[in-house]
């Protein structure tokens, strides 16, 4: 496979995943915002900006921090590299350049999502945004399904690898922002604010029912954190993404005979993850743990580009 093709597929995987994550985040934020009479609703959109690392850029844009403005910024704004539109533009640009490496179905899912957004210049408040977000989630699921029906070779593996790296980053950022905001040192948890906030997080990673199944227990922040970080059963957990990166690199390595720094770093991260317990993570500082994870994820991303000569 051409190195350029591998690079484009990897980025298609990343951008589609990011678009879907942003869509989920918007959906959960709308839900949280509708609770605004309660204290948890305050700052719902602010924290959405924080999760997508777009807070600073939004401030620079000089727009008023209204729900409508922030939701448009996250959905349609070209200037925001994490907006759904920017992600779909980038995903489609990459997909178009490597059309031959995608199945027809995979391409169609991306192109349809892109066409659906192309002529929109505004979103008509909550219900309109929700419909949009629903459609995008459906297209993203369609894309994922199509990828799993592609030949099991480098093509689909690079797509999935990009998605796994992106998913690890997104989940880590989500926990970091929420946890950081909501769990000041030593504060007791379990109040109504936490409940709303944690439910929002679970919605964002579509894990509300998963939590009930795994814990059969009320919402406890430490357990939510454990599930999102360490439980392999949850596809969006950091541990699951970590495993996936290792496995995909293995498959690619066997096929191409090329293993290296990326494999080493990914396995190292997996070993550390195997040893971790949620108690250690909390004791060592959740924010520090997540920041380190995000940096390590970036390092693996770099190693992948070098190992397969993306640039």
């Amino acid at each position, binding site marked *: *496979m*051409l190195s350029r093709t591998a690079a484009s597929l990897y980025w298609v995987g990343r951008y589609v995943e990011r678009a879907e994550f942003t869509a989920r985040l918007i959906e959960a934020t709308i839900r949280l915002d509708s609770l605004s009479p309660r204290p948890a609703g305050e700052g719902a959109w602010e924290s959405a900006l924080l999760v997508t690392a777009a807070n600073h850029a939004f401030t620079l844009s000089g727009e008023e921090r209204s729900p409508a403005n922030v939701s448009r910024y996250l959905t349609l704004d070209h200037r925001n590299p994490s907006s759904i539109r920017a992600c779909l533009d980038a995903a489609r640009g990459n997909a178009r350049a490597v059309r031959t490496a995608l199945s027809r179905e995979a391409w169609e899912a991306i192109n349809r999502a892109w*066409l659906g957004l192309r002529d929109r210049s505004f979103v008509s408040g909550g219900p309109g945004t929700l419909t949009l977000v629903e459609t995008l989630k459906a297209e993203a699921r369609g894309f994922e399904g199509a990828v799993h029906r592609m030949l099991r*070779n480098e093509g689909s593996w690079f797509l999935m690898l990009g998605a796994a790296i992106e998913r690890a980053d997104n989940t880590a950022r989500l926990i970091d922002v929420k946890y950081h905001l909501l769990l000041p040192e030593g504060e007791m948890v379990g109040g109504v604010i936490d409940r709303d906030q944690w439910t929002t997080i679970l919605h964002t990673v579509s894990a509300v029912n998963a939590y009930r199944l795994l814990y059969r227990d009320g919402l406890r922040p430490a357990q939510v954190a454990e599930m999102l970080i360490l439980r392999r059963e949850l596809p969006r957990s950091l541990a699951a993404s970590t495993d996936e990166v290792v496995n995909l690199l293995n498959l690619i390595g066997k096929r191409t005979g090329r293993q290296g720094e990326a494999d080493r770093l990914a396995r190292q991260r997996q070993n550390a993850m195997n040893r971790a317990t949620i108690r250690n993570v909390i004791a060592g500082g959740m924010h520090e743990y997540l920041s380190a994870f995000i940096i390590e994820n970036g390092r693996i991303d770099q190693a992948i580009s070098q190992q397969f000569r993306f640039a």
Partner: protein
Amino acid sequence: MDTEGTFDEIRGHGTDAARPEFAALGEWIAETPASELERRQKAAEAAFRQLGITFAVYGEEEASERIIPFDIVPRIFTAPEWDRLSEGLVQRVEAINAFLADVYGARKIIADGVVPPELVLNNPQFQPALAGTQPPHGIFAHICGIDLVRTGPDEFFVLEDNARTPSGVSYMLENREAMLRLCPELFEMFPVRPVDVYPDLLHETLQSVAPRGSGLNPVCVVLTPGHFNSAFYEHSFLADQMGVELVEAADLHVDDDIVWMRTIEGPVRVDVIYRRIDDDYIDPLVFNPESVLGVPGLIAAYMAGNVTLVNAPGTGVADDKAIYSYMPEIVRYYSGSEAKLPNVETYRCREPQALRYTLDNLEKLVVKLVDGSGGYGMLVGPTASKAEIEAFRAALIAEPHRYIAQPTLALSTVPTLTESGVAPRHVDFRPFILSGGNGVQIVPGGLTRVALREGSLVVNSSQGGGTKDSMILTGPPSQSMGPGGLRQTMGGMSQSLGAGMSQTMRPLGGGLR
């Protein structure tokens, strides 16, 4: 132009009834409500847009991607019509290849005074650097798209020989897929020959012209300028259908006159490049030094015989409009017989007498730039304004050698869905001819372009033209309703299934094999 008195390919001359062999189509057009035709046409266009079968129009914003309008009413050729066309096309393409081998070799045709030397040697499309270089297997123009027009039942003319990088074959294939899906009943009425063998034939052709010694499974690639090119969809489509890599210049490098592509497993040697980049841009060391689309050293690798370029560089000298006017002589010179497909009568404005005639009859003629294409730089006298005619008159007087003129032909029409129902519109036809180690092959089909505006003769997609499916029939039409027709329907069904399968089953890592 007035459509009265022109030949309609389905209805014949000026009658309402269809030609007997196409009676079933006439009934189909009459009985299918326009709203239903419109619905199907919209469904086809929606599918094209979803697949991304778009093209960019030069001069418009980069972001503008348009689909070429698709017309739901097909054009049909009978088996005898097609057989005669095929003979003429084979003869013509063989002559083109013989001519190219000659002008880059011994130049006998010039020595014998058949073609004026300056027309070849001073031609901007002639590549003097390549004189003396013969490509592997001696074939220059592996893929030709010969543009034909028709004025009567037996009157076909060659309008243009496209021997560089003709495009449009993806429309031939995708239009057929759309017709099979949306108008299956037509394939029960008529025994239509399948076109979906084209990618296989193309792949065979590419492999058959690999440099000697490149092994049993030569590595073929499609070289594209990139996804901003107007024909990118076609490049990716063909690479996809053949199961070969679609490369950009940056994916290739030349080392010691050998071409390599950069893959995740390391460099892989490339034997055959189906390049969809013009000569000017293909190698910055030899041609345009500004080109970032090209591969430095590619021409040296070609001259060393280590890689086959499809089509070979320098083929433009054979499809140039000035050379075109000599094609009847060229065909006679190499084949020893008269051209089976005549040219459109052509006035070479470089000749004083022809120039005078052209200037005196501008309002009746079509005037073309010798090196123009895509409908740019062209005057259609009968529909042009006074100002346009005067502008061309001035240009002709200033640089007569850059122009040719042709009479305005009464181009044939085919019924076409318009805003006011089904009405005749002018068409042309581009079949695709493959020349490889196994001889010359033509897929039974081609690209029919249709001028959608009433009376318009300009079919180019950049000028608002559309496309149609072009159906070639197997047997005499009288059997079309019999068992033969049914058998063919089955063939049609497995054909579309086959295309779908090859899509999903296509091996992805072409470089691995």
